[in-house]
């Protein structure tokens, strides 16, 4: 009886994630092209227009990078949590909580120095995100409740809370019928570096480096990896596995919260349901494509930021913006399939 079995490769090419991403992106472009052709649109024209409108000028490039910032930060948070082999599906909610944290502190405190006030607000954003994941984290370490479900559910709760706040206590009478909180003052706007590029992107670079260090070179990161690999090995090594999982979740939630804070202070300038356009979900795709590598998240996050900007402007030539979403999701799909063949090989076996 000859059967084929899949066996794990002994040695996986170190750049395999990168190659899978490239292949996945290529597959996505092909899928996108087919869809465009069905609609009688020229793929080449569409893609070159998207390219031009997303990175063709200083302004468009800075818009793309601004767009990338929350994707990258939330993606980094997901990657940190994944070091202990846990999944954070709640980045979307944590982004909202980050923004809520900012507004809460903003309306209750006032600092004269706008630099230190901005700093305080960003810290509150981080704390907001961490608080958002607190209940899933406690439920996980104390009772083993599946974090995928709980983090997902917190999204709905937090978005509900946002709707309540912007229709109730925080509703800005000046916004007429649009439910939103009042704008924050110009003194706490994040300044720009050049063009429209916000300082948020600089913070994002800094946090990418920090996440890279945390995951790959710190003792804490090492302890997280062991705890994620086997709780028994962790206990054997004298590592408190549950404690590591708990802090990993809080830090990861904080990253996403910071994304929400930066989005508020640099883009929307007020709390509304439009703080995030699904950044927390796209961030999952970004993190998964890159195999949870911070540098990869930075690069793919930037690309995805550009794709959304490109996608949002091609409406002008009558192409649906969803073409950008299709490309993003197909990239993940393609990359995961290709990655699978990097990790496994098909072998003939005579015996089960």
């Amino acid at each position, binding site marked *: 009886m000859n059967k084929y079995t899949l066996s794990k490769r002994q040695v*996986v090419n170190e750049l395999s994630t990168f190659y899978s991403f490239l292949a996945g992106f290529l597959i996505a472009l092909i899928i996108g092209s087919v869809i465009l052709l069905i609609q009688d649109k020229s793929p080449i024209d569409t893609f070159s227009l998207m390219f031009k409108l997303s990175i063709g000028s200083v302004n468009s490039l800075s818009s793309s990078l601004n767009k990338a910032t929350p994707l990258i930060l939330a993606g980094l948070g997901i990657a940190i949590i994944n070091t202990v082999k846990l999944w954070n599906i709640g980045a979307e909610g944590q982004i909202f909580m980050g923004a809520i944290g900012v507004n809460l502190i903003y309306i209750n405190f006032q600092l004269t120095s706008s630099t230190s006030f901005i700093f305080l607000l960003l810290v509150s954003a981080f704390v907001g995100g961490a608080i958002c994941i607190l209940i899933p984290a406690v439920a996980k370490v104390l009772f083993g409740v599946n974090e995928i479900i709980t983090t997902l559910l917190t999204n709905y709760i937090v978005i509900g809370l946002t709707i309540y706040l912007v229709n109730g206590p925080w509703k800005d009478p000046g916004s007429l019928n649009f439910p939103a909180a009042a704008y924050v003052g110009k003194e706490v706007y994040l300044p720009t570096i050049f063009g429209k590029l916000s300082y948020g992107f600089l913070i994002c670079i800094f946090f990418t480096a920090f996440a890279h260090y945390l995951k790959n070179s710190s*003792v804490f990161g090492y302890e997280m*990896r062991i705890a994620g690999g086997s709780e028994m090995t962790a206990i054997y090594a004298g590592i408190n596995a549950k404690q590591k999982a708990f802090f990993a979740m809080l830090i990861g939630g904080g990253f996403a919260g910071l994304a929400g804070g930066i989005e508020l202070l640099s883009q929307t300038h007020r709390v509304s349901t439009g703080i995030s356009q699904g950044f927390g979900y796209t961030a999952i795709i970004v993190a998964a494509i890159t195999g949870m590598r911070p540098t990869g998240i930075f690069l793919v996050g930037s690309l995805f930021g550009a794709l959304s900007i490109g996608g949002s402007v091609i409406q002008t030539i009558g192409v649906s913006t969803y073409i950008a979403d299709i490309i993003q999701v197909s990239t993940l799909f393609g990359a995961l399939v290709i990655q699978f063949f990097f990790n496994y090989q098909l072998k003939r076996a005579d015996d089960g």
Partner: protein
Amino acid sequence: MSNKFLETKNVSKTFGKIKALDDVNFNLYKGKIHGLLGENGAGKSSLMNVLSGIYQPEKGSIYLDGQKEKILSPDIASRLGIGMVHQEFRLVESFSIKDNLTLSKSNIYKDNFLKSFKKYSEIFALNVNENEIISDLSVGEKQKIEIMKLIFNDSNIMLLDEPTAVLTPQETSQLKNSLVTLAQEDMKTIVLITHKLKEIKEFTEIVSVMKNGKMVAKDLPTKDVTDNQLIELMMGAVKTSTVDKDNKIGQIKLNVENINFIDEVSNIKKLEEINFHVKSGEILGLAGVSGNGQVELANIISGIEKIFEGKIIINNKDVSNKGVRSRKKLNLSYIPENRLGVGLAPGVSVIDNSIVRDYFHTKLGPHLSKNKTSNLLESLIKQFSIKAPNPKAEISTLSGGNMQKLLMGRELVGDPDVIIASQPTRGLDVNAVDAIHNLLIDQRNKGSAIFLISEDLDELFKLSHRLLVIFEGKIVKSFNTTDANINDVGLAMAGASE
């Protein structure tokens, strides 16, 4: 003797290089309880798996009632009336007793379930409602349901793989009564695998013995064989020890005083009044069939298990209330029996696994520098001749022997004062076994105090100066390996009382 009900002829099964079954002939007789004895790894479970259609032998044939049968799958086995209870539970934990008992399509009591359940509950002295969920049952109750499942699936041949290993002595004697009833009244043909001679004596009429994949004795009438004969068959000839044991013995390094331990979950006493010490340069062996408290004892000494009675003293320091790390700092190393899962973390790279013992030391920190860690791994690889081509590869890509060398190397490289080595050569090939033995002897000569836990008597006789035997959580005997008889040790391991 009556006619053979089931017969295997020259059945062979190999796994890679290991001959799990080597031309095995085995007979079963209707309505009798058969004992099957053999050391760990002798091939007992493999033979049962062949009979129940889980493994396909490469060679040999099986006859049922004189008819040649090909048992290609568990399904076919169950149609032929052969059922097996595995060493580990295979019940659906979240289902009720009734669902588990009636799950299989070969089930015969679907219609009059309650009546039969009552009847067999009585035979098994089982006192639970049929709607109870499996996960709420005690271990003993689960075992009864496992066996009852065979009856509900109309198995006439019941293969029981170490069913008593998880039972208390009371539950065991209850089980004996139930099995005798089943054999006599229902004409069930039963195979009982156990490591305890007492159970072979009490339960079975016929006994067979396996060693290294071979059937070394079959169809022995239980009442006519002595414990000594059985042990001799199981153990075979003693290999002569070639290790010099005249090395220098120094001061006491590890002291274990009055350890009592009750398992919290099952509320069963796992260790009772354990006392011993190990000196520098000495190897103290602990012999015993697995599951008699060895893992618990090792966990208590290493600091993993924190709630126990008694004292652990390392290098004259009482560490009973100290954690894993402070014991490591007193230079204790622990090589756990569960290599991948405890000693090494699956899913994590070779290099990460190579620093589990000392990662928190400043010599690597504060930032776990890539250079320092890879230098450390490289020197481990060289010193212990480990084959690990890619440091970033996942640990389970290494062979068992190389995994064990990495684990040993990691734990031994700092010349520890005390070493707990649990089943250090289990599942390894001859060359790897030799390499591991040499490592332990080198370390002994450097002055480590070594506590060696093993099921392999050849290994214990070869390496250790003294030998303790653990049985049901108690140290039942101690020997000097130079003048001990291996059969006496085997008898003590099997719980034979003099």
